[in-house]
């Protein structure tokens, strides 16, 4: 099974500053999807950004962008101009494009605190 590793259990950032959350994964597949999900205290997982492995260009969504390094199997999330509402748990997730793609594999999460 694929594994997803988030090595930063907790991170903090000053409001309006930039923070980067790390994620690495292990796979032997060449085609797959990567996601970052935000989970506020309500527990609802909210999609932040996604990346198709076959695309070399890094995905961006407003203040959120990724640094996708396929060879290194690294998928970090950069949050620019951090806002108080960004405070939450962030989960990195992997989804295969093969027949096993029913499963998302999640990391253990990074708790982000935004300091006013």
């Amino acid at each position, binding site marked *: 099974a694929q594994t*997803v590793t988030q090595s930063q259990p907790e991170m903090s950032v000053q409001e309006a500053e930039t923070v980067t959350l790390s994620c690495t994964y292990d796979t032997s597949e060449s085609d797959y*999807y990567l996601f970052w*999900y935000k989970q506020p205290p*309500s*527990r*609802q*997982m*909210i*999609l932040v950004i*996604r990346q*198709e492995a076959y695309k070399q260009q890094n995905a961006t969504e407003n203040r959120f962008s990724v640094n996708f390094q396929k060879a290194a199997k690294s998928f970090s999330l950069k949050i620019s101009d951090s806002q108080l509402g960004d405070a939450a748990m962030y*989960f990195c*997730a992997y*989804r*295969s*494009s093969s027949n096993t*793609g*029913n*499963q*998302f*594999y*999640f*990391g*253990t*999460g990074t708790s982000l605190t935004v300091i006013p």
Partner: protein
Amino acid sequence: GAGVSQSPRYKVAKRGQDVALRCDPISGHVSLFWYQQALGQGPEFLTYFQNEAQLDKSGLPSDRFFAERPEGSVSTLKIQRTQQEDSAVYLCASSLTQGFGNTIYFGEGSWLTVV
């Protein structure tokens, strides 16, 4: 509805009780997933439905766990003879089609505490 709805939001069960957790996916969504999230962990896959067919149940931890989606819309996750290790948030998610790149939408989860 506008989003994935789960009920009950909170459930306290005595060890040995049976529980049933309900998921109403977004209307028209073909794919439905159940995940289990223990405290301090990421969600872990339990099972997957495409319409009414349960195509993957490889993540169900024991035969005490059973899921169904008889009419291809609402799904129920049943846990028999609950144990303390079953305490977790149970997340339901749905997506419009089974395409692997499709976005899946999560509900707010059902928090189960077994005492």
